């Protein structure tokens, strides 16, 4: 992880860590903080705790987003301080709805000049963000809003498993992981497990991200904690609730960063320090029935 972030994330870059509720790569966010990256434009539908931490650490210059809350808990306190009080620094905002962000990633991945979404009618969002525009259909009177493509310099995507080349499989909520990967110039995949290429190729319909666009594969078990990885561990909901308290004051937040980010060398050290808590998050088993692709040789 150290090398991947060092080599592929540069000061001033536009960076997307995606993963809707699950597979949020806290391991990468913490490494970005530890390496004191600066002036990043951070993109994400739901800037969650990982982004609150990066904002608090002064990594982030601008946020491109659609929902900046602590999901199921309330507000993101560091985000609020940055927007309401410019602490620790001013935060530029470029704001959409989820569908708008989804459309931006699709357009980015497909190299389209814009993407049409039937939303924003009657909303004040287009007034707040002039990049949300309206065009006319060439097949009738209908007008429709469009959003511009989003093409990050780097996408960092957590997944259940990949092979060493970077062919990556995700199940459960896949969010915009695929679109963010194809939209970006560089891609870092972080996985719970590295598996043999034969495991991936035995179920190619599950491969969302091909090795072709992957620049680095990093193995980080529990790399998405306190978010979750379907089938591997549950969300650490208690931490999401605790964060609301930790983040209310800059001082307690900074102390937390000192202990859990700056104070640990890497994710393995974090996981070791967190071990008792992590072990409680393992779910029961619920296996899919295997399917037959058939062998077609002759």
């Amino acid at each position: 992880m150290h090398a991947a972030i060092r080599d592929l994330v540069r000061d001033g870059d536009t960076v997307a860590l995606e993963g809707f509720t699950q597979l949020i790569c806290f391991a990468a966010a913490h490494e970005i903080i530890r390496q004191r990256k600066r002036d990043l434009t951070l993109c994400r539908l739901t800037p969650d705790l990982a982004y609150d931490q990066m904002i608090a650490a002064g990594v982030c210059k601008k946020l491109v987003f659609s929902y900046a809350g602590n999901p199921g808990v309330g507000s993101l306190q560091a985000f609020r301080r940055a927007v309401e009080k410019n602490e620790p620094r001013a935060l530029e905002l470029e704001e959409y709805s989820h569908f708008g962000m989804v459309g931006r990633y699709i357009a980015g991945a497909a190299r389209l000049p814009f993407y049409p979404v039937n939303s924003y009618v009657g909303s004040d969002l287009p007034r707040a963000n002039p990049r949300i525009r309206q065009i006319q259909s060439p097949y009738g009177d209908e007008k429709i809003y469009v959003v511009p493509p989003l093409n990050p310099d780097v996408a960092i995507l957590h997944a259940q498993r990949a092979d060493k080349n970077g062919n990556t499989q995700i199940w459960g909520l896949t969010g915009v992981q695929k679109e963010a990967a194809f939209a970006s110039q560089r891609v870092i995949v972080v996985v719970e497990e590295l598996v043999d290429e034969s495991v991936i190729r035995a179920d190619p319909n599950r491969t969302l991200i091909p090795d072709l666009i992957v620049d680095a594969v990093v193995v980080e078990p529990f790399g998405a904690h306190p978010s979750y990885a379907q089938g591997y561990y549950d969300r650490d909901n208690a931490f999401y609730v605790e964060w609301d308290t930790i983040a209310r004051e800059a001082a307690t937040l900074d102390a937390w960063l000192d202990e859990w980010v700056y104070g640990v060398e890497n994710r393995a050290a974090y996981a070791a320090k967190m071990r008792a808590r992590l072990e409680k998050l393992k779910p029961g088993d619920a296996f899919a029935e295997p399917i037959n692709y058939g062998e077609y040789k002759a």
Partner: protein
Amino acid sequence: MNYSQNELMIAAAARELHGARVAFVGVGLPNIVCNLAQRSHAPNLELVYEAGVFGAKPARLPLSIGDPTIVTGAASVMGMPDLFQYYLQRGLIDVGFLGAAQIDKFGNINTTVIGDYKKPKVRLPGSGGAAEIAVLCGKILVITRLGKRAFPERVDFITSPGHLDGGDARKNLNVRGRGPEAVITDLCILRFAEDTREMTVTSLHPNVTRDAVQANIGWAVRFADQVETTAPPNAEELRLIREELDPQRLYSR
């Protein structure tokens, strides 16, 4: 039987899903409401989550709208492009159930900022999927606690359009869905007048006075000609809330 105002609100909101086939489940209170409906009077209600889930059968109350329990055992799980385009924009969702930080006289919802957008007094989380849920679902139900700041005459920012300026304003913009139908609060239920689309109290919860309601609304609110009394939660609803859905009492205390 004893129950809290929140329990009553949740149970009353769940009953509003009577007859609905497919509900889009918003973050927070709507989550417990839709799960209660599925476990009580509406076992065939299909739950759709913006996270990319159709036909969820949550084994526990989802801790968020992206909880792993909405995936395991669901009918279909997909990327968000498919969910937003092929379900929501396709017009397959009967009812969108939303929360609201602020909602005004005409049902416009603000979850973006209190104050000026550029220099907000309070920065709220933003739209999430609400801006499109508000225009693309067949109709919208809203659940939120009553309060003067939460119910201003005009919201500071329209994140998710309701009936806009009232009357035919929404129709004139060619918005697809019919918009807000009911607002379920901890004190009363409000619906929108046929002609003006103004929010109107149609049902008071037991032992709640008109004055108590008016004291928590930022404009001179209208009351329907016939104001009903909201039915209290029944034993099974209370059991489901207390034992199955919210044993930690995060939503229903």
